[in-house]
C-alpha cells in the first residue's frame, strides 16, 4: 500500500457524508484505516500492523501516543511489603506532585526483613502512588507513575 494521502481520507469522509455512512474500515495486508462519523467530529484511526506509524497529518493520535510515552510506571521486581518512608515517624520519600530524579530513592520494599531501596528509573514528577503504606506489593505490580520530563 502506498502512503495514505489526506485527500484520500477526505474523499472517503465526503463519500460517507453523501451517503450518510457512519463507519468505514479499509484494510490491506499492511495497514487498516477506520473512520467513524457518528459523533460530532470524525474519528480516524490508521494502524500499521507491524508498528505504529508516525504521521504529522493526524495530530490527535500523535498527542495520545505522546501522552502515554511520558507517564512511566515504576514496577516492583520483587514481592514484599511497601513502605513510603524510612521509619513510621519520618516523612515519605516522595509524595504525589514531587519532582524526582533518576536514581533517587522513592520507597522501600521489605523482603524477609531486608529493606530494599527502590529508586526511580527516570526523572520527572510523581503522578500517582498505587500502593498503601505497609501493604504487600507483588512482583510486576506498579508502585507509582512518574510523568517523565
Amino acid at each position: 500500500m502506498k502512503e495514505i494521502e489526506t485527500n484520500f481520507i477526505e474523499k472517503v469522509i465526503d463519500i460517507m457524508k453523501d451517503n450518510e455512512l457512519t463507519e468505514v474500515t479499509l484494510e490491506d495486508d499492511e495497514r487498516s484505516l477506520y473512520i467513524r462519523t457518528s459523533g460530532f467530529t470524525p474519528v480516524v484511526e490508521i494502524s500499521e500492523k507491524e508498528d505504529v506509524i508516525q504521521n504529522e497529518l493526524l495530530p490527535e493520535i500523535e498527542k495520545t501516543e505522546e501522552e502515554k510515552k511520558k507517564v512511566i510506571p515504576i514496577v516492583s521486581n520483587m514481592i514484599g511489603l511497601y513502605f513510603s518512608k524510612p521509619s513510621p515517624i519520618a516523612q515519605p520519600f516522595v509524595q504525589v506532585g514531587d519532582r524526582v530524579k533518576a536514581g533517587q530513592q522513592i520507597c522501600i520494599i521489605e523482603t524477609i526483613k531486608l529493606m530494599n531501596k527502590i529508586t526511580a528509573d527516570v526523572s520527572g514528577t510523581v503522578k500517582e502512588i498505587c500502593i498503601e503504606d505497609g501493604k504487600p506489593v507483588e512482583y510486576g505490580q506498579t508502585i507509582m507513575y512518574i510523568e517523565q520530563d
Partner: protein
Amino acid sequence: MFKKVLIANRGEVAVRIIRACREIGIPTVAVYSQADANSLHVSLATEAYCIGPNESSKSYLNIPAIISAALVSGSDAIHPGYGFMSERADFAEICKEHNIKFIGPSPESMQLMGDKATARKTMMSKDVPITPGTGILKNFEDAREAAKKFGYPVIIKATAGGGGKGMRVANNDNELEQNINLCRQEAEKFFGNPDVYLEKYLVNPRHIEVQIIADKYGNVVHLGERDCSIQRRHQKLIEEAPSPAVDDKTRQKLGEAAVRAAKAANYEGVGTIEFLLDKDKNFYFMEMNTRLQVEHGISEMISNVDIVREQINIAAGNSLSFKQEDIKLFGHAIECRINAEDPDRNFLPAPGEINGYITPGGFGVRVDSHVYSGYKIPPYYDSLISKLMCWAPNREEARRRMYRALKEYVITGVKTTLPFYQDLIENDVFVSGNFDTGFMNTYKKNK
C-alpha cells in the same frame, strides 16, 4: 491447625493442596509466576501473590520470593507439592529459621534419603533388602572385583543423582572403566559431587513403590503399593494400585520393609519407598521420595485415605488418625498422566490454548487438573494437563473404565497424550498385567 498455608507450587498439585486445605478449613496462599496469572490455583486460593517472571528459577524456585510471600501473607506453613522445592533440604531449613512449618520431613531425613549411598547403608542396617552394591568407589580395581562378584550387568550411580540422571550400565570390564569415568565427570558437573558407587543391575524389573505416612510420634502406616513399571525415559506413563505382580504375601513383606525404611530415616510426613521387583518376587530398595508423589491419588482411591489431608494434619503436630489395621485396601485404581505433548512426534511438548475441554465423569472417575476451556498452557513448565484416575472393584473393570473415560475426554487446541493412552490401555501386554520396565522398548501401537 495452621492459620494459613502457602502453596509453593503450581498446576494440578497446587489445586490438589488448596482443595485439601479448603476441606479442612485453612485459608490458602497461592504464589505464581507471571505466566500463571490465569491458572486455576490462583483463583481458587484465598490469596494469591505474583512472585516472579515466567522462568521457574526466578519464581517457583526463588527461595527469597517464596519466603517473602509467606511472611507478607502471614502464612505459618508452606506446602511444597512435588518437584520444585519439595526435596530441597536447604529450603526446609530456611522455612524453619523463619518459624514457618515446611509440610514435609525434616531437613535431616531429606538429606539422609537424598544421599543414595548413605540411604543404602541405613536400609541395610534395618534389614530392608537392597541390591548387592558397593560403597563409594575408591578405584577401578574395587569396581571390577565387585562387578565380578555381582555378575554383569552392573550399574554405576552417582551418590548425589536422582530421577534417572547420573546412572550408567556396564556389561563388561571395558564398559565399566569407561562408564565410571563418564559418570564421575557428569556427577561432578551436574551435582557438584563426583562420588559414584556400583550396584548389581536388574534387567527389566518392575518398579514398585510403597506409599507410607508417618507422624512425629513414630507411628508409620503404609497404604499398599503402586506399580509404575511403564516408563519412558524414566518418566512414569501409567500407574496402578495395587500391582498386578504383587500377591498378598509379597504385599505384606513390601509394606513392612517400607515401614522399617521410614522408621530408619526417622521420617515424618508422606513418602514413597521405591523398590525393584524381579521375576522371582524378590524386591530391593531403590530410593525414597521424601514428598507427595504425582501418583498418590490412586492409593487414595484404594485405601479411602485422603493423603494430602492427613499430610497436613500430621505436619500440624497431630498423630496419625488411623492405624495399620484400619487400612483396608479395596479395588483397583489406574492413573494416566494427560500431557500437552505430541505422541507422534516423540512426546514433544505442545503448549498452547485449550479451546475445547470436556472432562470425563461418572462413577469411579477422578480428574485432578488446573485447566479449563480457554486456558493457555505456558511453555515454561511441565506439560501435565491432568491426572485421570479410574477406580473399580477389580483391575479389568478399572481398565475398561479408564478406556471409557479416555474416549470421553475432549481436549482440543493442543496435542495431547490422550490418543497414546487410548491405545496403550488396550494393548494386549498391558491387559495381561504381565509387564516390566522394559515395556516401552517393545511397545508398538495397535493401529
